[in-house]
């Protein structure tokens, strides 16, 4: 059976749309609100939701997501609670592709396959693990493929062609291209090397696997830029967490998220 992520990309390609992937930290600012935020983003047009499972040492994340993860941990959010959130989202959105983003140790602690199997029961379709390069992927890839889960690998603008070929072969669901040299976090602008990287990765990925670009994207203009270079989707994280941390009231924040997703989704359609 084709998993929800691949099905969604097929559907979007047929409509000539780019995928809008939205990231929310589970339990930030609290579990209930993060769940409502996911609903708001879906209403606004998010195609895929990434649920961040907070980890104590998120080395690939910038200040925005670090602070949100730290706050969630302080409030007692555990991987189990994050997965229960996924389960609840799954009940209301049977077709929504749901990814878990976290760091290796969260899986290793419980056992990689055991954790993945439990996540699948809770409605998760795949994993993104930013500290797991292809060299260390063996156990993770095996478990994911056995369970029919996607394992999304990351590539970077400085990834060599040889590594890139390996990543294209290993990734499933889509390939996550990191837009910049750096960690997550909203940016004002992008340099030419980002667009070159998109073109290069697309050339190697051919039509085998969709390419979504993330890190720093926060405006419709950014999305049009990435789409223009050939990206099949964009991933937005810190900009969403920013909205969630700055709004004066929950009601206002949820409305802002709907509007934000709407404007982003519009840019995903040509």
């Amino acid at each position, binding site marked *: 059976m084709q998993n929800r992520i691949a099905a969604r990309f097929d559907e979007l390609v047929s409509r000539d749309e780019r995928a809008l992937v939205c990231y929310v930290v589970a339990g930030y600012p609290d579990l209930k609100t993060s769940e409502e935020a996911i609903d708001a983003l879906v209403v606004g047009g998010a195609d895929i939701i990434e649920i961040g499972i907070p980890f*104590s*040492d998120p*080395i*690939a994340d910038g200040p925005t997501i670090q602070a949100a993860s730290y706050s969630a941990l302080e409030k007692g959010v555990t991987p*189990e609670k994050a997965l229960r959130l996924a389960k609840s989202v799954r009940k209301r959105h049977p077709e929504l592709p749901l990814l878990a983003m976290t760091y290796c140790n969260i899986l290793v602690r419980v056992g990689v396959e055991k954790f993945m199997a439990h996540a699948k029961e809770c409605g998760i379709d795949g994993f993104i693990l*930013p500290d797991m390069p292809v*060299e260390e992927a063996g156990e993770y890839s095996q478990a994911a493929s056995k369970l029919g889960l996607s394992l999304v690998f990351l590539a970077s603008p400085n990834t060599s062609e040889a590594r890139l070929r390996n990543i294209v072969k290993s990734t499933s669901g889509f390939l996550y291209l990191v837009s910049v040299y750096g960690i997550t976090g909203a940016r004002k602008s992008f340099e030419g090397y980002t667009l070159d990287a998109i073109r290069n990765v697309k050339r190697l990925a051919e039509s085998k696997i969709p390419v979504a670009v993330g890190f720093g994207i926060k405006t419709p203009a950014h999305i049009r830029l990435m789409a223009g270079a050939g990206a099949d989707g964009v991933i937005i994280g810190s900009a969403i967490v920013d909205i969630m941390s700055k709004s004066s009231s929950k009601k206002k924040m949820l409305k802002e998220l709907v509007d934000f997703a709407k404007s982003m989704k519009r840019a995903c359609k040509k």
Partner: protein
Amino acid sequence: MLGSYPVAGKFGRYGGKYIPETLAPAVEELESAYEKYKNDPDFQKELSYYLTEYAGRPTPLYFAKNLTEHVGGAKIYLKREDLLHGGAHKTNNTLGQALLAKKMGKKRIIAETGAGQHGVGTALACAVLGLDAEVYMGAKDVERQKLNVFRMELLGAKVHPVQSGSKTLKDAINEAIRDWIANVNTTYYLIGSVVGPHPYPMMVRDFQSVIGHEVKQQMRELQGKLPDAVVACVGGGSNAMGSFYPFLDDQDVMLCGVEAGGHGIKSGKHSATLAAGSQGVLHGMFTYLLQDERGQVMETHSISAGLDYPGVGPEHSMLKDAKRARYAASTDDEAIEAFVTLSRLEGIIPALEPSHAISYAMKLAKEMSKDDIIVVTLSGRGDKDVQVVQDYLDSKNRGKKKKHAK
């Protein structure tokens, strides 16, 4: 043969490269540069020049006669890394890596530091080799170790206080890794211990192995045989790995790593990763960690900031499982007692880190015969710790007086 690890970047199942993809090219570049220069006679000659003429190697292997008589057991020798330039063994590694970075054409060096010893070691190596140094240090540690912050600044380094997470060493490493990701094309990350992704644990061990090689040679000259035991403290584990490595395949030499027992293992307030930890992934490596049952890395405690780290070098994890080295813990109290004892008996003020090793060696010496020989690596000098020890002893004395008053 345990001495032949790492194989394919791993020490048995430990080690590896759990890093974001952006760092993969940098780590590959480092791996091939290190392979090249490791066997380059000119590089080795230059490093040896700095270690000898600038840093003061070889360091003495001193027979602690008074301590030995006081304990009444095996002979205790001290490997005097406290006499190395910079005041600790850290300089062996910082000179090695800074020289390598220079050969690689990297001008900007970043480093993490806990108590500040590795930061100082990095700052002095960069100063003498003409490189720019920036050091990440937890905001809490900046507050606790003001003197070392000033030393680093005096040596021309820029110190960045880290406000994230627990604001200590592990967060300083996180922040240094983030900097490295953002500036990967121009920056060299100079890790201070046998931790991080491959090739760091191997490379830092190699640079620190000068300790063990000298011990071996000095022991042969002094006693015509190898020591019966080598004892060293373990935080990340670089002075221990450097002391142990040349002896790995000498099965008759007992190797003992001593971790920080803090307030005692049972209290939960300690940094004894190998004694009380479980396997996991942190800072690019698979190794033993202090973590909760859900995989969140825990905050650690030790009176010595240099041992206050929730992970440990992957090679130590392998040696523990293979039972080639034994790992014990000394508490804060025991370390302080050893600190005072060595100061009084030998006129040597040790750093708090090796005070843990000295404490354990004193116990071990009692169980061994008078013909046996123990070498303790005295990894650093204690000037940086006198304030902490004074405060500790003052508060103990106040506690005693209160008891008497009752």
